[in-house]
């Protein structure tokens, strides 16, 4: 080992420092064949499809390739009306990066008629203070659709 440098370190401050670091990411999400069929139907036909498990008799929306409970391969598609019941909702009032809309906005779980699972989506076309659990809802599709879940602009109360 080389001779140590005999310079004093006493004059170097010890105050704690906090540094800001930025993390950048640009990940890709692959939808898969099952999801692609679901989104294509929304884009091309303004239709919401579910998928049925013959064994469990459950209809899943959004659809998936295997049954979450019994792991059977799912192939039976079911066309849904798109209408449903609002099971629960919340109104977002705070701001955070990467939100789909400027707050305040509402989103909730809508149990579509004919499906076993609820679907999470935005609620619109209604005064935020007038939203009630149990309301009948229907989807409002965008004019320009590209094959994304946001091709459904929001769910609004029927009538």
């Amino acid at each position, binding site marked *: 080992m080389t001779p140590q440098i005999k310079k004093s*370190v006493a004059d170097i401050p010890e105050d704690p420092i906090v*540094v800001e670091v930025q993390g950048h990411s640009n990940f890709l999400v692959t939808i898969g064949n099952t999801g*692609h069929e679901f*989104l294509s139907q929304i884009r091309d036909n303004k239709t919401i499809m579910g998928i049925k498990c013959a064994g469990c008799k459950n209809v899943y929306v959004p659809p998936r390739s295997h049954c979450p409970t019994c792991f059977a391969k799912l192939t039976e598609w079911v066309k849904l009306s798109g209408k449903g019941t609002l099971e629960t909702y919340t109104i977002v009032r705070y701001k955070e990066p990467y939100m789909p809309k400027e707050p305040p906005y509402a989103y909730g779980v809508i149990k579509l008629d004919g499906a076993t699972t609820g679907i999470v989506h935005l609620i619109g076309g209604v005064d935020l203070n007038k939203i009630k659990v149990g309301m009948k809802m229907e989807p409002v599709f965008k004019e320009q659709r590209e094959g994304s879940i946001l091709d459904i602009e929001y769910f609004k109360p029927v009538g």
Partner: protein
Amino acid sequence: MILKKEEPQDPSVAFRYPRVITYKHSLGYQSKFAHALKMGRIIATKCPVDGRCTVPPRIVCPMHHVRQTEWVDQGQRGKLLSAFKINFPMFDSRTGDLKSWETPIVSIELEGGARMDGWCAETDTEKLKPGMVLEAVWRPPEERKGRVDDILYWKPV
């Protein structure tokens, strides 16, 4: 170019979601090291058991599990241990940009005994021989941020 960034065309098949997230890290015990860098000095903690100095400094010796309270100045020069150059574009994790890296990275043993990495002024790796003495070239004092890249590069003496 090795890495291709394909832009997905159809979001029903695949889509990208770019994100920038800011983190705040507390340096803690290592704050003194950061202050020293701003002053143009490299300091290291010394293990009371075997006398080894480590950069960056650590509050506890990784091998002997004892607190390291002694700080030792490491000088301004070091001996070259090994060098390599990156020949292809790689991501700079600080900015997310894909960029080329022109200068070699060197491993150095400092005068005080600690070892660290740095950039090297000599771009021809043929000229870099283990054992060569290199000297630190610092950023101007007003540009220093208390980061290891306050040492701009190491140049052969």
